[in-house]
């Protein structure tokens, strides 16, 4: 499938899954909110420039926000991880020129350990910022720590399941193709 089509499809799929499945799960504990939607930002292709990455993330976050009636909350967190993502990719990428050779961040293109670190750092950043914005209105420090910790753990589990279910085999790109 075409890269653009694939990403447009993912855009809607992730939002619908987040809104109508994950947010419909009966609340287990006030610290646990299952978030998966931001994986879309992590899966965007390398070739997308930083400015465009942020624009896409903003629009994506905002469209989720309109469903959940929190305009701006998820958009702000998405823009943050979109801004930080290129730095991390630069640090963690396994070999020279992998950005050109592969389409998007995945276990295949980055290697298991760097990709896990990449996911962990961005998940923590995303939840940290999200809960921080909530915390500014109410709550205390333990609420902040507990919620970031619990939500990150749940998110990592969900991401692991998603990666196993939808195995993305990135093919190696050559100049001849």
């Amino acid at each position, binding site marked *: 499938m075409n890269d653009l089509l694939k990403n447009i499809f993912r855009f809607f799929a992730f939002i619908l899954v987040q809104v109508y499945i994950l*947010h*419909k799960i009966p609340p287990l504990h006030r610290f646990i909110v299952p978030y998966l939607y931001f994986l879309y930002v992590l899966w965007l292709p390398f070739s997308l420039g930083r400015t465009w990455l942020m624009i896409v993330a*903003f629009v994506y976050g905002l469209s989720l926000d309109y469903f959940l009636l929190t305009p701006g909350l998820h958009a702000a967190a998405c823009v943050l991880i979109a801004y930080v993502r290129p730095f991390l990719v630069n640090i963690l990428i396994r070999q020279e020129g992998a950005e050109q050779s592969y389409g998007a961040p995945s276990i295949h293109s980055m290697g298991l350990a760097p990709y896990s670190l990449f996911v962990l750092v961005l998940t923590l950043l995303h939840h940290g910022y999200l809960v921080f914005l909530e915390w500014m209105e109410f709550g205390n420090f333990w609420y902040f720590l507990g919620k970031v910790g619990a939500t990150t753990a749940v998110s990592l589990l969900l991401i692991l399941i998603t990666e196993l279910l939808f195995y993305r085999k990135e093919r190696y790109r050559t100049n001849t193709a």
Partner: protein
Amino acid sequence: MRNIFLFIRRYFNFLFFLALQVLALSFLFRYNRYHEAAFMSVASEITGSVNTRYNTVEYYFKLKKANESLVQENVHLRELLRSNYQGADTTRQLVVDSIRVDSLVLDQKYFYRDAKVVGSFVTTQTNFFTLHRGLNQGVNVDMGVIGPRGVVGRIVNVSSNFSTVMTMLSRQFKVDAKLKTSGDRGTVSWDGISPQFVQMRNIPKNVKINKGDSVITSELSSIFPANILVGTVDTVVNDPSTNFLTLRLRSATNFSTVQHVYIVQNKQLEEQRMLEANTRKTNE
């Protein structure tokens, strides 16, 4: 001048990041305070129609619970019928209220509209419902919303065919309530912990409270009619540092299953608000 352009070009990404952050945060803070955001009415039409589609499936699974609560409400209303009351002896007389039927419409203070819940969330710290009724059907901001069992929330946003309700399960929602037994008033709000319980504050310590006492809306809450059930007392929390008790109430409405609600319009709200605003102005 050239240096400024160079600077902008060099740090374009960072500046752009800051700009987007400011935009997003301004959306957020504006919404938290005034409950309005750019494109909100267009967006809620779209999300509303998607929600309606989802709800056609979800509704099927909740039919049983929705029916049960509607039947219970019917039973409650039937018990109020005049024909149910007859004294056994003639010393006690039943007096019939003498409101004339044709004046009923003019004197009616609260006007009810039925509405269907098409979207609901109970997992976050500020929970909203989407109702399939909007401006075109006469719904407006700041109307009260009650369910078959009790208080649900307040309308905060309307588009042409949909409206969003800030439910009692939101940090910003407050309703003025009283104990049914003693009539002591307090404020009910949510602490964000469990969606089954809400908190009632400012009850004096000398009031005798039993578990299971009803808490109903007071005459002071202008958007809700008086005597609508808010919840029942579950536990009494005694805070030694204040002179007041905090009650933990089991909320009357089950927010995860409610499907049909009533939108309450106070026809005299405008007048009351204007008077209060004028009074405040003259006393300043």
